[in-house]
């Protein structure tokens, strides 16, 4: 039985530089240092915090081809390493993405490695330790030495169960871990501006909504307002959707199976909708006109009392 390879096409080098990535900490430095030393890297962080974007950015910046594998439960070691295909009367070996990356000295990115079964993950062991080699048992026991420039990068969402316990301790120890969180409000605002054309109040309120949702100590809720979903909501607003409709589709949408949570989120979204601003509509007696003029997010919006 032959299944489709899960590898994506290698990301081509952009004419106008690497894809935009705004660092939240020292991850770019750590990534680059690890790459120079051939150390495998583990990116930890919630879904939608920019792990994939970081890898794409680094691959382009380091001038290495990127082989991305989105891990899933049905993925086998063959999906990573390669397999024989029947063509005519012959059998032809086709490299998997991990093998390809090792041969050409690319970066192999196993996205959401926890989703993969342990027996598939075993395939990376010999590449992740000091040997940096790949043993292709099915290809008559061929051993491939990873070319210079090769790096293994895995991403892992600590919200899920950990497959790391299934890695050999020696492998785990050889992984350099980088922990990524959601960016601060200021940085996230900057990302929103780079990724979308949304400006002004709606952009401010999306950022605030994200910050507020992340204050909730509720399993699974923090991630619904990830940087990724905020970017998506912003894109929908620039397409002409109302704030509430856009954010509902991008943020509350994935929760459709949980009506109470969803309604609560929608009520939250409404609270942040600048279209519902009484000052803007001039319907509230208390919110004055100064408020309506307040268009930019200012940290110190009131002077300290003398």
């Amino acid at each position: 039985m032959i299944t489709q390879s899960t590898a994506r096409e290698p990301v081509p080098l952009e004419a106008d530089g690497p894809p935009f990535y705004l660092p939240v900490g020292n991850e770019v430095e750590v990534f680059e240092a690890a790459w120079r030393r051939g150390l495998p890297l583990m990116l930890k962080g919630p879904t939608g915090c920019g792990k994939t974007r970081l890898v794409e950015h680094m691959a382009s910046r380091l001038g290495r081809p990127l082989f991305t594998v989105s891990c899933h439960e049905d993925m086998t070691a063959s999906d990573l390493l390669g397999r024989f295909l029947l063509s005519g009367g012959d059998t032809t070996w086709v490299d998997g993405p991990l093998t390809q990356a090792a041969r050409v000295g690319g970066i192999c990115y196993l996205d959401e490695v926890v989703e993969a079964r342990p027996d598939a993950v075993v395939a990376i062991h010999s590449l992740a330790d000091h040997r940096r080699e790949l043993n292709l048992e099915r290809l008559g026991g061929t051993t491939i030495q990873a070319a210079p420039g090769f790096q293994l990068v895995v991403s892992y969402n600590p919200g899920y169960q950990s497959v790391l316990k299934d890695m050999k301790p020696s492998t785990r120890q050889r992984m350099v871990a980088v922990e990524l969180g959601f960016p601060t409000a200021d940085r996230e605002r900057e990302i929103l501006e780079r990724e979308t054309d949304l400006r002004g109040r709606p952009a401010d309120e999306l950022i605030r909504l994200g910050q507020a949702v992340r204050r909730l100590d509720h399993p699974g809720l923090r991630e619904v307002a990830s940087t990724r979903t905020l970017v998506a909501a912003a894109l929908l607003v620039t397409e002409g959707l109302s704030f509430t409709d856009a954010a509902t589709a991008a943020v509350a949408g994935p929760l459709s199976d949980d009506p109470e949570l969803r309604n609560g989120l929608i009520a939250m979204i409404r609270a942040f909708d600048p279209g519902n601003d009484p000052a803007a509509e001039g319907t509230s007696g208390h919110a004055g006109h100064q408020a309506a003029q307040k268009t930019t997010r200012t940290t110190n919006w009131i002077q300290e009392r003398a």
Partner: protein
Amino acid sequence: MTLHPGSNPSLAELELLASAIAGRGVTLEPGRHGVYTDGAVIYVGADVTAGAEQCRHAVVAQAVLIAAGSLDSSRMRRLSRSRPGSARRYLGLEVARACQEMDEALPGAFQAAVHPYAARVGVTGSPDESLLRAVGRTPLEEPPAWFGDLRPVAMLRSPGADGETPSDSELAKAIRAATEPEQDDEDDGERSGMLEKLSSPLRSPLGSVFQRMMGARRSSGGEGLSGSGVSVVEQHTGRAPSTARQTAQALPPSVVRAGGQLTRGAIYPEWDAGSSAYRPRWCTVGHFDPPSSDDPSVPPSGVDPRLIRELSRVGLTWRPHDAEPLGDELDLTALVDYRVAVAAGTSGEPRIYRAERRTAQELGVLVLLDATGSTSEQHEGHAIFEEQRDLAHGITTALDQLGARVATYAFYSRGRGNVRYLRCKTFEERWGVTAQRRLFALRPTGFTRLGAAIRHGTHLLDTQAGSQHRLLIVVGDGVPYDDGYEGRYAVEDTRRAIDEARSSAVGCVGLSTRRTPGSSEIWDREAHRVTATTAELAADARVLLGTALGRAGRGRAVHHVRSAS
């Protein structure tokens, strides 16, 4: 007040917003008038239109007070002695201060609404500064009405306010109050003050007692727990008469409030044998994690090989396996590999078939451990709870090794509004050190609303096990007892819950480590064993569990357990 078209959130819908801003679980409840909070609940008066913009702002303002730490008892005490208007001035200054501090997470519309007032009075730098200005002589404007109220007296007005240990009846009253949805407004202050104090460990010794009773987090457990809770709940007398006959219907797990905390869970009916009817939406089951303790040591997990062998024969079904030496179908991948191997001159065994083999994969088990106060009793030098816990550990380990889908939860209750499921291992999680640590961090506490616990177990098996055979193993002393839940009522409800499980094809068995008088009332002989250890269980496991699965299958096309060869 202005209603905005298309924005008419009910109170419940605003809870998420309030919780997000407060930075902790907050609930909204109807009050008589005005909007105010006791630190855990925000009361919204009947005179406030739920959907109005200003109602939302008021709720946000109260949540902001909680987030900003404005409500601590020493300042409340000071305000309660101050001249009229001080509390509201303090409220206004604190909202303005917090609004500036938290501007990154507060709706812009709310900030804009606060802004004119804040600009007029000026923003303080700390709660103490706000307090000084609020009670001071310099004239200071009160905030607009929509900021809501601050009621320091109500927060302090409750028995035990000076921090002495509460009497049993006070605790019972507080628990009762916490589980009663309808409450006379008059009691709000007293009740909420009580709860507020109870749930704050720093405030008084009362807090730690309550926390212990509620099984909330504590740094290291174990001290002085034995039987602490059992005597405090008075007999519950006033039962609401049930009207129509209802069917047992569980809502899907969603967000519930269990014991005042927002969490995942579900609400279940309860069987009232007296009137032969279900009480609809009667019990709230919420999911929590066991308290994290500094070093819950996990003993080396020895597995009982006999238990594994016996369990491996329960729930066997036929499943296709790849790369088998014999079979009816060809396994193409294996065939290609084999051909390649032959061509390369390294032929091995031609394992090129797909074949059906008996596998234990199809078994899903939920191990439900009774972690209620009654199990903390000592018996011949051993705490019953520890024996039960070790048994649950052994069973989980064995099933996990067998590759069965297994989840392990402990439970206890504090009245019908607060049945707690404590996660040790979900179906998805590995039975690793983290999960085992959670099991060993458990300390028995609280009471035993067994029916609701069984209904929730059934529900989890139904929705999450994903296996054909499903089994609920209750490890406990089998004595159902809770506030308003005892005697025949409790026994009948529990039996009913077991019947419900069976009719939704979930097998149900009870295991006890000691012979207790109550368990025979709940479990029939076929479905219950007294087994102190996994070794004793092994001797009997196949019959016990096989029978349970067989009974659960009745009336349904479910595989029968094959006896082992």
